[in-house]
């Protein structure tokens, strides 16, 4: 009995300590985004007064604090959306078909193809940094959305294809076989039977590639230097490296940049871990 109580107390202390460490930086960001810039110097742990000024700053066309080279934050948000949505749609289309082929059809070279997909997924972005940069410069796509989208496909396509392979393998084969006995071709079976069934996993697939593109820093940082084309990640980098850092505005930008991926992650929470580790890699 006493051992049990001791465990309970330890458990609650551990939970509180853990929650503090995890939440403090996030709380600090949200708090800072809601206070006037002048409070930065007072290093307040709790806000003295609350304002939406910083968020409004971000939405203004030209403002002192919330702009990078006279371009307002709404442009950067728009850029991030354009890039992420394009990557998502292209990846969804490509990886669904590729994943289906690798999961369901038998053909020569299938094992090698699967291996190539996994290796590409696991390859650290940094190994490809130099050659991708050279490639994109050589086809004149630096400082363009097309260039950055192409670079991001090197991350999203292998990963989402592999995710779809794992998913399609789990659907019973009989479903298409019945349709094909009735004379439907494989493609018809795929469109009429498998895809409607796979809607949830297609949503997860879209969320994966969207957040992957939204969270990118490396490729945008090396491929884009025109201010009007910057996504949020690198625009914020410019703010932080200025002479005067508008911390409150920067934190408001951080909150805005986090809202989208955090919402999406909470929706698909239970699929994430399986998707990133073993679930998607049932060889």
């Amino acid at each position, binding site marked *: 009995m006493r051992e049990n109580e001791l*465990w309970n107390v330890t*458990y609650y202390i551990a*939970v509180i300590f*853990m*929650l503090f*460490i*995890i*939440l403090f*930086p*996030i709380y*600090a*960001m949200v708090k*800072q985004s809601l206070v006037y810039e002048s409070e930065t*110097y007072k*290093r307040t*742990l709790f806000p003295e007064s609350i304002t939406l000024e910083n968020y409004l700053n971000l939405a203004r066309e030209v403002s002192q604090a919330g702009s990078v080279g006279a371009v307002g934050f709404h442009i950067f948000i728009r850029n991030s959306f354009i890039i992420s949505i394009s990557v998502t749609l292209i990846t969804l289309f490509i990886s669904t078909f*590729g994943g289906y*082929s690798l999961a369901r*059809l038998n*053909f020569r070279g299938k094992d090698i*193809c699967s291996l*190539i*997909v996994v290796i*590409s997924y*696991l*390859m*650290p*972005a*940094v*190994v*490809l*940094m*130099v*050659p*991708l940069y*050279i*490639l994109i410069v050589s086809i004149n796509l630096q400082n363009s959305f097309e260039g950055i989208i192409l670079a991001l496909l*090197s991350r999203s*396509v292998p990963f989402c*294809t592999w995710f779809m392979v794992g998913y399609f393998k789990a659907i019973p084969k009989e479903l298409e076989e019945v349709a094909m006995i009735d004379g439907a071709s*494989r493609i018809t079976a795929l469109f009429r039977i498998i895809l409607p069934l796979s809607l949830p996993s297609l949503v997860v697939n879209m969320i994966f590639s969207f957040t992957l593109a939204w*969270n990118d*820093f*490396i490729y945008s940082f*090396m491929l884009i230097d025109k201010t009007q084309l910057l996504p949020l*990640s690198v625009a*914020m*980098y410019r703010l*932080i490296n200025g002479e005067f850092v508008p*911390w409150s505005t920067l*934190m408001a930008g*951080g909150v805005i*940049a*986090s809202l989208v*991926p955090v919402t999406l992650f909470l929706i698909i*929470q239970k699929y994430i*871990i399986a998707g990133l*580790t073993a679930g998607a*890699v049932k*060889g």
Partner: protein
Amino acid sequence: MKLKTRETLTAYSLLIPTFLIIFFVNFYPLFRVFYLSFFKKIVGSEEVFIGFKNYISLFASDIFWKVVTATVIFILSAVPLKMLLGIGLALILNKPSKLRPILRNIIILPWALPVYVSAYVWVWLYNPSLGLLNKITETLGLGHYYWLQDYPMLGIVIVNVWQTVPFVALAILAGLQSIKQELYEAAAIDGAATFQIFKYVTLPSLKQTLYILTALQILWTFGEFVTIWILTAGGPGYATKTLPIYIYEKTFISQDLGMAATLSVIALPIFLMIVIYVIRSLRG
């Protein structure tokens, strides 16, 4: 026979878009980086074949070994810390309680934030004159620190661990929850103490999950660029100049593409070994 040919054709045509992309943006660049490592190539000038000279001058340079040391220190301090804290967190979360669903959603937050956002937040927290960390240490009477100047490696390790522990913990939790309840019951009947249950039931069942996670974490920690670049940009001096940071500097600051390619190639064997290990353990 005819049916089989048709099936093969369908298979290939469905795969074509995937492989066009993978070859164009993954494999071609990989071959290119290998090729370039044998050339002297500065941005704006011609490629000159120099054989193994890039490799030789790299191995002979002090800076390269400093970079390797920083990379190894970073991996060896961050990965074990993530795994230990991850196991701890997972055990806390595994205890059935009403709070569990809420806790899971809160815990995932640091990992759900874009890496660059949490890096910016920590740059501010670490700031010696404006940051809240010094405010806390001063209030508690622990003094005033120049965090990223005095303890740069510790600084980036803390942020990297903070960002990735949620993922590790939730992956281990998934492993914990797949352990059969009967095993625990049997151990309890045999009169095993809490620690003994952990040692003889929990750990062995988790072995596979832990190995794969460790391998993946080594891979991802090794490739970490964003956090380090935003927090310290590799400094001060060579203290946090890991391989990815050095590759970036060679590419965009020295514009020495041949050398940058050589550095990327050197990373490849280590990377491939880990990948092969991960693939094998997932299959076996």
